[in-house]
């Protein structure tokens, strides 16, 4: 398993895919007012960062970035669990998941 290989595509293309996915996630968070889709967009952004970390780990021949991706996954899973619990609580109280209904703090 020790033989080495050249990457099949230019390294810039991996960077391009991950920044395009990140921008799509930003557009999703800003455009949609549905709480579930906003959470999904946050997940998409975390995934694009993971992809970038893994590709740079291959680029530098270093496993530390892949270990870091594990911790990003852990934090993402905990964040989604708490976020969905908050979503369920919001839905119970105001019977909608439209983020614009929560404007009591807006002056």
């Amino acid at each position, binding site marked *: 398993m020790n*033989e*080495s*290989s*050249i*990457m*099949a*595509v*230019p*390294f*810039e293309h991996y*960077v391009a895919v991950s*920044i*395009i*996915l*990140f*921008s*799509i*996630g*930003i*557009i*999703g968070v*800003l*455009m*949609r007012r*549905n709480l*579930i*889709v906003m*959470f*999904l967009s946050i*997940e*998409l952004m975390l*995934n694009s960062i*993971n*992809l970038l970390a*893994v*590709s740079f*780990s*291959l*680029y530098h*021949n*270093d*496993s530390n970035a*892949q*270990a870091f991706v*594990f*911790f990003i996954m*852990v*934090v993402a*899973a*905990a964040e*989604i*669990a708490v976020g*969905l*619990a908050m*979503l*369920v*609580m919001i839905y119970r109280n105001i019977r*909608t*998941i*439209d983020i614009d209904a929560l404007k009591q703090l807006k002056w």
Partner: protein
Amino acid sequence: MAAALFYILSLICIVSSLVMIFHKNTMYSVLSLLITFFAVAGLYVTLNAQFLAIVHIIVYAGAIMVLFLYVIMFLNMSNIINFQKSQAVKIAATTTGLMVLLVIIASLSSATFNSDIVANQDIGLAATLGKVIFNEFLIPFEVSSILFLSAMVGVVIFNKKDLIDE
């Protein structure tokens, strides 16, 4: 062959994530993000991160997406379709996202990457990653288990109604 695999997988990623943010039905958004996750796992395999690809499928497709689908079905939210937002919000959001893309591209434009790097095939194996995690990241690993525990307690307290009344 590997190059064609990369382009197909990244096309699937981008198209299904666009479907995710533009589709009106929440259920289809979740399912298309599931397709994105599988394609990202495929991209991990092309990057010699085999173990991470498996973990990615297990954690995201197995746990997180099931959680989303469970919440949608449990609260019967799939029939709440569109919130009829103004066109100006959509245009502003798309412009902002494209601006962010432009800024990142501009900041990366001066960087030069060495494209013919020699990829070590061992860095993504479970043995290598296990050694890295349990040698160098042992304390963060243990702290993350406490993070999970506190998240679990938080979820239970959030959704227990009569805990506050007593």
